């Protein structure tokens, strides 16, 4: 009954992530968690929207935001969403090597995104003296975007941990759910980012 053995194409079920009870549980548990995360981010978005004009004579959204960097970040994260889809595609086809490869690309893109974000924050703080404490707008901006960044960072550590852990073992029914739940989480992060670039940056630019 142990699910530990590496799978060969003969024994690979169609949905390895949900083939065991543990897998099913993880799958549902993560989805439910995402339901909760929706409210979490909604509360942050709501706070941001309520405070986005409370700049207390500090820099405003129009002063700060540049579209180029945000566009690059968006492309990085969106693409990483696609690469993780590819990874899951190869998981279904039981091609462990390709799965790891695509996940590696995902991680790479994620790191790129995070680097851009760090650069962006650094830039605001040093060029504009716009900090967490400048105004209610500053607090809300860094909190919302920072929470998302924190999620990305956590996702990356998670991804790297399972990739390294399973590198030598290959795919099995015990770790397939872990990969799959990671990919769901990663997509969700992308969803949040879509709203961030829309609500924070684009709407901020529009005014």
């Amino acid at each position, binding site marked *: 009954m142990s699910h530990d053995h590496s799978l060969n194409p003969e024994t690979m079920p169609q949905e390895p992530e949900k083939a065991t009870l543990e897998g099913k549980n993880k799958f549902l*548990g993560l989805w439910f968690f995402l339901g*909760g995360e929706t*409210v979490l981010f909604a*509360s942050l978005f*709501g706070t941001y929207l309520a*405070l986005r004009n409370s700049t*207390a004579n500090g820099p405003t959204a129009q002063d700060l935001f540049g579209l180029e960097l945000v566009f690059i970040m968006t492309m990085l994260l969106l693409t990483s969403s696609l690469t993780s889809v590819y990874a899951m595609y190869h998981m279904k086809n039981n091609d462990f090597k390709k799965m790891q490869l695509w996940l590696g690309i995902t991680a790479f893109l994620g790191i790129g995104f995070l680097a851009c974000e760090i650069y962006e924050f650094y830039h605001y703080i040093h060029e504009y003296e716009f900090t967490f404490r400048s105004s209610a707008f500053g607090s809300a901006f860094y*909190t919302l975007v920072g929470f998302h960044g924190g999620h990305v960072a956590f996702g990356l550590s998670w991804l790297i*941990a399972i990739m390294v852990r399973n590198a030598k073992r290959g795919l099995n029914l015990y770790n397939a759910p872990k990969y799959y739940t990671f990919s769901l989480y990663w997509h969700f992060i992308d969803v949040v980012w879509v709203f961030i670039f829309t609500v924070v940056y684009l709407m901020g630019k529009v005014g």
Partner: protein
Amino acid sequence: MSIAAAQKKGFGAFIWDYLTTVDHKKIAHLYLVGGGFFFLLGGLEAMFIRIQLIKPENDFLSAGLYNEMITMHGTTMIFLAAMPLLIGLMNAIMPLQIGARDVAFPFLNSLGFWLFMFGGILLNCSWFLGGAPDAGWTSYTPLSTQSPGHGVDFYVLGLQISGAGTLMGGINFLVTIVTMRAPGMTYMRMPLFTWTTFVTSVLILFAFPALTVGLFLLMFDRMFGSAFFDVALGGNAVIWQHLFWIFGHPEVYILILPAFGVFSDILSTFSKKRLFGYTAMVFATILIAFLGFMVWAHHMFTVGLGPVANAIFAIATMAIAVPTGIKIFNWLATMWGGSITINSAMLWSLAFIPSFTIGGMTGVMLASAVADYQYHDTYFVVAHFHYVIVGGVVFGILAALHYWWPKLFGKILNEAMGKWAFWLFFIGFHLTFFIQHFLGLMGMPRRYWVFLEDQGLDTGNLVSTIGALLMGLGGLIFVINIIYTAFKGENASGDPWDGRTLEWAIPSPPPFYNFKQTPLVRGLDPLWIEKTEGKGEMTGAEPIGDIHMPDGSILPFIMSIGFFIAGFGFIYQTDQKAWLLAVFAGMGIALLCMLIRSLKDYHGYHITKEELEREAD
């Protein structure tokens, strides 16, 4: 670990067993002990409050201490007593009711408990470290951001940590109910307690994140100089109120719905009838939960949101009377035509009906926005919510404890003491809180450290205090009953009450794998069906076979200690940056545990068929 080895062990092994357990029944014990302890603490705080208010301008407590007392009373009772006791009951009973061997995430279950426990301990450490939080359990900004000392910091981190535990509990129950029901246990055959566990968990899932965010914002403002609630920098204090109540109102249904489930099961068992209007009961539960998300601003009628918002929220709030009424009448109809046995469990349930009805109706009175301009923040509100909380939730917990004690611990609570405790508590309860409705309208706002002489408030407060002391006495007898039962109690059979649901189909206390064979469910009240059709016991849905059990783990305990340490670090780094070390160390411990957890494989172990068969005789 084989079954026999579990019997005789030293004290150290006993403790170790509980620290590492992932068995839902043992975790339930932990929750009950933890929640019970905090309930006593909260009760003690209530006694101090009432003693302070026994006469006008009393000086039993100082002004600052009084505010700490009410804040800790409210916070402790809601977050550390009522909720954990309910979660404990859910843990103990829900898996049994659906015929499961365990919950979906045993590890998370244990982690949830330890987070709750260490969050609670962290919060209460404030008493010894310069003062407890003093801005009310609602912690309205900017009072809470301006509150000096570290009191409110303890509130923020204590609740953040224990809240994370609760959220895990909620997700765990949801997945358990979705994936682990026994064959034949369809959704519309689940006992009401399981249903309310399910709906409550949904509420937890959607309500707690708002609190999480609120607490983060408060934490950032207090500890890292952000400006969410700082008017000078453009902040807005009302954001906190919205976030708090978007969480807070669903929270009160998180408390009451499980109690509703308890009463549904008990009333039907002791009336020997199936629950009247089962389908309506289920839908009423869901409807209450749904509406519960749309009414939070009824706590904010006097904030000045304007007439449109006030009118909408007034009507939405009143609407909840309808599904709740459906429940009340269905319970009455369940008893109607039945054969009613009255014992302690039933006494608490019967007392619930009129008491809660009063509380619910004062709730509807509060919902009438313009009337609330008078009631708001007075003792009328205090009376309302103690009627629903004590008369609903606390009665529910006590009823459940009497009802399921045999299942939990294999002993029956003493009936005579049960009745004494009940009557004292019941009479004390009405004495304490009924008169508070009038006190409120007579001009006594809540959270008043003293009331002045010559305002006509003396008699009412005296009566209220006397009532509270009676409740204290009742509580004391209940505690004595527990101790007495532990040593001298009558042993219980598997089915002492002629029960109807699956938990009564197995021995008391249940073996750690619960069901030797997963039962086959053939309808609502499965055990009752088997009884009336002459068999008297459940049929297995599968032949006896190996049972897969999860591994115990100490990681949840250590991880929670990590967060606990980090909590202290966060609180004190405002005084001294060196405390950041504690933050890093604590978080490091927690993250390391997470890493170990995800890198190490946990395959559990199997109880073999042979062992099970040996056990049978």
